[in-house]
């Protein structure tokens, strides 16, 4: 029965992928990515990878769809033109796929318990982690303790990604509702009523339901954070779920409202705090005479207790950073002012409608370096030859 379900889900996954590839409407395609991630998470569950399925569920269905749609709202939501089958690409793909399939012929069978993968290391974790760490969830034990440095690096990547999104898109936020005073201390009723009710009018039912549900979602996030030692869950999942709660708030009440309550300037700091908690635990372990992220030294008489404390703190750090990064990514995308420039399209002979003339061309750096400061000044002032007489 399990095999049958797995096969059917794989077929569904492939069908979704192919439909997605053929879909020109990017809006529909982003919905298909949502379905794709739902199927793949079901597949993870059927293959017993509960924690992976948990993460995919939290990330794929919610945040990933939201980000895709946010991008589409800032660009176009239809591919510009029909592209015929690209034969070179198809050749590359078929060759690569053929080589890979030839390679799989030497792989161990699906589900073979004697495969190389299930060798020394996996057996060590399965046999010993209960005695050494004492948490029921082996994945959490490995994630936060045995491979703690690895997870630290992954968290660093998430942090850097959040920073990069801020650097790329953070500059041009659309203004907060202008009302004179600083937005933080303003009473909600003092704002212009028409603006306030812009979409409250639109969806009263959704708004009421979201109001009721939000606290429970946050509660559930904390439950996942704390329960990660005993069942599927942990810092990554909890962080994403918490961020989902804030995204729900942003979707229903508007991103400006979200930014007003959770200012990105504060989130930027929180983002770093989580990473510092994680690293700090490791440094404290070193100060107590152990190795980086070796939690046993916290309670020398009973090392497994130390592991519990260490894993709790580390997961807390992960949760804080992940949730802050996800909220900040959403807020940055959602408050970005859309570009008003019309879309440039190619006609049948691959010619653009806009012509690039020499005046539009920004100077290449060497040329810019060769120009004198007076020249640049003159260009800034009037750009005529007469202005070039200005003394430098």
């Amino acid at each position: 029965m399990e095999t049958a379900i797995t096969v059917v889900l794989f077929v569904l996954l492939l069908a979704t992928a192919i439909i997605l590839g053929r879909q020109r409407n990017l809006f529909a395609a982003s919905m298909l990515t949502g379905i794709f991630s739902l199927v793949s998470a079901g597949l993870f569950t059927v293959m017993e990878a509960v924690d992976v399925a948990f993460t995919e569920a939290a990330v794929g269905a919610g945040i990933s769809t939201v980000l895709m749609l946010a991008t589409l709202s800032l660009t176009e939501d239809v591919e510009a033109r029909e592209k015929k089958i690209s034969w070179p690409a198809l050749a590359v793909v078929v060759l690569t796929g053929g080589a890979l399939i030839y390679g799989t012929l030497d792989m161990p069978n699906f589900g073979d318990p004697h495969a190389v993968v299930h060798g020394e290391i996996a057996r060590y974790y399965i046999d010993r982690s209960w005695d050494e760490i004492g948490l029921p969830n082996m994945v959490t034990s490995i994630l936060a303790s045995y491979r703690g440095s690895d997870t630290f690096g992954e968290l660093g990547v998430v942090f850097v990604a959040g920073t990069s999104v801020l650097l790329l898109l953070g500059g041009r936020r659309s203004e907060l509702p202008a009302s004179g005073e600083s937005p933080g201390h303003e009473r909600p009723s003092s704002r212009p009523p028409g603006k306030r009710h812009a979409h409250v009018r639109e969806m009263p039912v959704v708004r009421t339901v979201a109001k009721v549900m939000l606290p429970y979602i946050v509660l559930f996030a904390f439950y996942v954070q704390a329960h990660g030692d005993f069942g599927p869950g942990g810092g990554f999942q909890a962080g994403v779920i918490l961020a989902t709660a804030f995204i729900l708030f942003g979707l229903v009440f508007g991103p400006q409202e979200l930014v007003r309550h959770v200012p990105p300037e504060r989130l930027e700091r929180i983002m770093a705090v989580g990473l510092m908690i994680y690293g700090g635990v490791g440094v404290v372990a070193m100060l107590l005479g152990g190795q980086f992220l070796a939690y046993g030294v916290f309670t020398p008489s009973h090392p497994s207790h130390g592991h519990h404390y260490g894993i709790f703190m580390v997961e807390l750090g992960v949760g804080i950073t992940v949730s802050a990064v996800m909220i900040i990514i959403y807020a940055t995308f959602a408050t970005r002012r859309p570009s008003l420039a019309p879309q440039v399209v190619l006609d049948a002979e691959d010619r653009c409608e806009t012509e690039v003339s020499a005046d539009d061309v920004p100077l290449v750096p060497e040329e810019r370096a060769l120009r004198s400061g007076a020249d640049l000044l003159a260009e800034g002032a009037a750009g005529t030859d007469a202005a070039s007489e200005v003394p430098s």
Partner: protein
Amino acid sequence: MTLPNVWNYWAVVVLMMVGLYIVIAKPNYVKKLMGLSLFQVSVIMLYVSMGRVTGGTAPIYILDDGAPRPFVLYTNPVPHVLMLTAIVVGIATTAVGLALVVRIREAYGSSEEDVVAELDRREVEAANALAAQRAAESDASSATAAHAGASHEEHA
């Protein structure tokens, strides 16, 4: 000769190739990123299906009165750990990619690869033409030693 029972890898490879085809052949950047996330999921699927053990259960100890039940076959937890973090990192990096697409759309007025390439090509052409023109002008001016305009001082 009997074929090995590796259909899961075949499914993963086909999935991966669909993603790769989208990345190579589709001109739209958002579509490319969608293909990239297909690719990513297929890699994750590859690892997770490697960790599967027939008859095994999820890698969470089954507890009987506070002690793990003996002789239970568990799935391999190591791929799960690796892939769990990979998913979160994947969405974060996808967000960076989407941010780049937004910036490209703002700078070029299009998020299609061929339009961007065409615009780039023209820009390089125009810049080359401009540079050639400037070089010709400066040659002419230094040869005749006519007026020394401010814009030509640096060549003198």
